[in-house]
């Protein structure tokens, strides 16, 4: 039994016509049309295009809701194993249509999808939502694009593990995947540097992220009335680490009550952090989470009071996304508890 596939193409690839025919409404045809043949050829019967949706690019752009409704209705009825769109190369409206309809099929019908286009095609904006194979900027690239798309599509249909973007040919989609290169990292680094020195093109293996910098809030006007909380990524936890916060790559944070605690002593507290020399923090956990000093300030009236709970996790090897999620959650708790400010210690 072969996998059943629906293919989406535009009026040009269906041989209806160019720009002058871009207004045509969606139609459903049996079997493959145009570039679908190239896909079928690679699949050699393991998968097959059962229906082809043809739609004019202008029609899709100008009547997106109607086009989507109609096409989704067909696909829902056909119940294919896979939905493939394009490739659209550098045709902007076609690329937009391919990505948009593929995304809708994936999200609304739960059917796996794939499309392909040139990296600068506006449709590629959706590359973090759906898999998009990177193609050349003209239809001359069909000979290369079709086998890449067909092979990746078949892997997905078979439920096989998908490799890294550079292996499978899809555009980097924000999900980092490990794989083994042919050369060791040091050799790759030397080759990359030699290219850079000679003004030859080179491709970084990790494009720098745009860094999330948080501007601090304005300073508190009167500390003597403020409730201040202590939080840390330095891993200070009650002795024995009751919530099993990981020594690296923490999956959660801890919330601990320090009502009546004047000083973090080594018999009751320790660090769970695996990324720094723990000896000094274990000798005196106040070095990382300064409860003793805050209590002094409290007694002296320098601060209103120390919040009775502290929030803690391990920063070591913990993904930025995880850290952000922890903080979003406990910041809400702090806010609800009427905390005015937080001292966040790191290590």
């Amino acid at each position, binding site marked *: 039994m072969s996998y059943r596939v629906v293919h989406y193409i535009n009026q040009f690839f269906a041989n209806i016509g160019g720009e002058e025919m871009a207004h045509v409404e969606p139609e459903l045809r049996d079997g493959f049309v145009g570039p679908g043949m190239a896909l079928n050829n690679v699949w050699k019967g393991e998968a097959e295009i059962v229906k082809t949706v043809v739609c004019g690019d202008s029609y899709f752009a100008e009547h997106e809701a109607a086009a989507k409704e109609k096409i989704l209705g067909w696909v829902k009825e056909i119940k294919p194993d896979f939905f493939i769109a394009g490739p659209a190369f550098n045709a902007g409206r076609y690329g937009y249509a391919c990505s948009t309809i593929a995304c809708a099929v994936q999200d609304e019908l739960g059917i796996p999808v794939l499309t392909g286009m040139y990296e600068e095609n506006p449709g590629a904006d959706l590359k973090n939502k759906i898999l998009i194979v990177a193609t050349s900027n003209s239809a001359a690239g069909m000979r290369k694009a079709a086998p890449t798309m067909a092979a990746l599509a078949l892997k997905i249909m078979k439920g096989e593990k998908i490799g*890294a*973007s*550079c*292996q499978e040919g899809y555009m*980097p989609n*924000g*999900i*980092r*995947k*490990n*794989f*083994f*290169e*042919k*050369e*060791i*990292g*040091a*050799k*790759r*680094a*030397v080759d*990359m*540097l*030699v290219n*850079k*020195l*000679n003004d030859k093109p*080179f491709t*970084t*293996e*990790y*494009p*720098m*992220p*745009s*860094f*999330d910098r948080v501007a601090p809030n304005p300073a508190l006007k009167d500390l003597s009335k403020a409730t201040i909380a202590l939080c840390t990524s330095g891993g200070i936890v009650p002795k024995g680490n009751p919530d*099993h916060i*990981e*020594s*690296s*790559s923490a*999956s959660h944070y801890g919330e601990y009550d320090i009502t009546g605690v004047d000083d973090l002593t080594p018999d009751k507290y320790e660090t769970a*952090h*695996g*990324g*720094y*020399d*723990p*000896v000094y923090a274990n000798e005196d956990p106040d070095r990382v989470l300064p409860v003793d000093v805050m209590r002094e300030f409290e007694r002296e009236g320098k601060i209103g009071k120390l919040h009775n709970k502290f929030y803690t996790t391990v*920063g*070591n*090897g*913990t*993904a*930025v*996304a*995880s850290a952000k999620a922890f903080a979003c959650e406990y910041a809400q708790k702090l806010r609800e508890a009427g905390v005015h400010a937080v001292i966040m210690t790191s*290590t």
Partner: protein
Amino acid sequence: MKLELGFTQINDIQFSKECKVDNGTLYVDPEAVKAFMYGDDDVKAWVKDFTFDVARPGESVRITPVKDVIEPRVKVEGPGGVFPGVISKVDTVGSGKTHVLRGMAVVTAGKIVGFQEGIIDMSGPGADYTPFSKLNNFVVVAEPMDGYQDNKHEYEHAVRIAGLRAATFIGELARDLTPDETETFETYGIKEGIEKLPGLPRVAYVHMLQSQGLLHDTYVYGVDAKRTLTTILYPTETMDGAIISGNCVSACDKNTTYHHENNPVVKSLFEAHGKTLNYVCNIITNENVYLADKQRSSDWTAKLCRLLDLDGVIVSQEGFGNPDTDLIMNTKKIELQGVKTTIITDEYAGQDGKSQSLADADPLADAVVTGGNANEVIILPKMDKVIGMLDYVDVIAGGHAGSLRPDGSIEAELQVITGATNEMGFNCLSAR
């Protein structure tokens, strides 16, 4: 400076009363190694006992917790001896001749002192990620004296010295061998290099050394790197053990002493030396925890790059998170001196791979090589034999409560595997 390395391939290790290398097999008497290790007072003071084992490629063996991996070498010509300032006197090494027992290593393992020691699997999926699964490993398991928990720095030091002494003892067996293969490495003085290799871009290796404290330290000629200023080395000095590891960080991106002796950036730069570039020197710089130290060290790195009139550098990081700051400071400042950079790092993109991979970033770091995402999860099947102990699998960096499963298999992040995402670029593992 010119160094000749003479390699003898070791294909097997056998325990024997007689210590020798014969026809590719190392015969070694564990009692003799033990006696040599106990020749050091600190080892005597802190290590109650040693046990020994051999782990060979392809065997169903797991070694954990691993502290260091060391390749036995011996200096046969030229000044100094291996591991200068630690085992040998502090003479400048890196010239003359050194014999290497290739295809084997001394691995130190045993009871944990922090969180970070790693796992080496000799077969199965984990073996693909550690270079040490391909070696014949002479494993030394140390058992601490009572009370070591309150003297962790001393105990770590003792185990480190013990490993180096074991490697020195075994390396000595290579002294009179005729190597299977020899290779010569030479870099020139500044002016000499420009005259000999006119027109080639002048490139150095900025080698960042982890120096954050217990189990995060590196030693250069015996000096704790956190007490050093950025300085320069001849690349061949590293081949004689001028830099040693006291460092487990997360095991995956820990530079073991073996990595320092066989630094792949040094190797790759020598391969290109005289062809596409002129390899000038190594610049070593630390990764301290204080901001002032970070600023000073990265200032000095950039200053030396300019002073040496370099065209480009490779920067290798060690560790992650906090050292990402050092990496980016170095890279940015070097680029602003007009010296081009390529950097080698690894990633902490989360188990799902969806997070930002580094804790610091700058657009000037536009040429990056990655050793892979250390958060990726791997299942390590049960092995027939464990050298060391599985007691710590749940708490080492990369493990979690329940990592060690009832059937003896381990579910953990790649972090737990010694050398898996090495940032000297030792491996082929990468990510996109």
